[in-house]
């Protein structure tokens, strides 16, 4: 499944880039993130407690940041596992300066497996978009602006 969208934030690209690669800020922004620890340069171990409606699960996973071009681009590689299933994904984030601050354009490719994919296939896309929206809403609160997300799955 592919997810892409843009999100505008009222803050300069340098600050946004710094925030998006700051483990402490990421932990507060990733929905349900209980812990995010740095194990090596640009490699983190995360624990997430995700609850969407009746589905609740704890996921453990690795987050790796690659292709870092400060204040313009980076790639995030995630793989996680929990009782309801597993997820792997790669996301590219491109930051552009605009009138209101920064436009974050993201494209991601995600694979989901296990029970959650078997029985919840029809719901995965909605769930992924909801988590993405929550992430950016949290980021808005961190950096201090109004939420404005447009996401589109293709």
């Amino acid at each position, binding site marked *: 499944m592919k997810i892409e969208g843009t999100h505008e934030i009222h803050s300069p690209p340098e600050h946004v880039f710094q925030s998006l690669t700051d483990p402490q800020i990421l932990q507060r922004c990733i929905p349900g993130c209980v812990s995010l620890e740095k194990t090596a340069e640009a490699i983190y171990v995360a624990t997430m407690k995700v609850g969407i*409606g*009746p589905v609740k699960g704890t996921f453990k996973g690795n987050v790796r940041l690659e292709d870092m071009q400060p204040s313009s681009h980076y790639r995030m590689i995630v793989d996680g596992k929990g009782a309801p299933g597993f997820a792997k994904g790669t996301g590219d984030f491109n930051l552009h300066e605009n009138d209101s601050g920064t436009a974050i354009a993201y494209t991601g490719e995600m694979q989901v497996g296990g029970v*959650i994919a078997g029985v919840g*296939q*029809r719901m995965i896309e909605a*769930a992924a978009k909801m988590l993405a929206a929550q992430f950016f809403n949290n980021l808005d609160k961190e950096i201090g602006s109004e939420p404005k997300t447009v996401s589109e799955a*293709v």
Partner: protein
Amino acid sequence: MIPAQFDYARAKTLDEALTRLAQNEDAKILAGGHSLIPAMKLRLTQPPLLVDIGRIADLSYIREDNGQIRIGAMTTHYQIESSDLLKKICPLLPECAAHIGDPQVRNKGTIGGSLAHSDPAGDWPAAIIALNAEIVIVSKSGERTIKADDFFVDFLTTALKPGEILREIRINRTNGRTGQAYVKLHHPASGFAVVGVAANLSLNGDGTCDRASIGITGVAAKAYRARDVETALNNTKLNIDTIKNAASHATDGTDTNGDLFASAEYRRHLARVYTQRAVSAALDKAK
């Protein structure tokens, strides 16, 4: 497929259920159990406590009070499907109920449970929005009423807060020339709506549309009101062209979702086609 261990409490009264619910914020209400129990068997959800409200006597009813239809949360899909009163005064509800799942689901599943679960492809949310219903919610601190439009918040998420129970659905009876219809493309395996459209029309004496209410399910993260379709229908003389034009706005401003069975683009197409069919069917019934 065996669920994880959980505690079970059968409440005899609504007050007892609310007390139990207040003791554990991860507790889940067990109504008909036709969404919750399958999720528990797959261990997708593992609530520590189930509070069964199935034996509370006064939660299952269909009645009319001063022009207002009242339906108790524990009323089953089958009770609604077979209600002579509803067939007469609010035929959208029995028609919608007949589309839900299979006989077992309709005999055990409840309207309150279905609404509280807010499955993005559930049938009731579309009908409840099209009927401009109100939902009555109770908690330890009292009762509140919320409009159907405000009840569905996001994917599997409603305005219900921890400690609250959905108690009743209220619908104002419409008089005059009205027509209602629910059309749906069933997913061949699950029976859920790939797309489901509920249309509720009030017509003026001259045949123009006085008020159109359209609810759509299956397309987005939650059921929604198709406002642009309603605007295009209101104060319009309804015919195949005006209906087709209005239906072309079925997914305006909506973030649609795809899955392996139907892509987002296909769903948008289906939404337009089924909206046209629902409005046409409602118009036929109003004649």
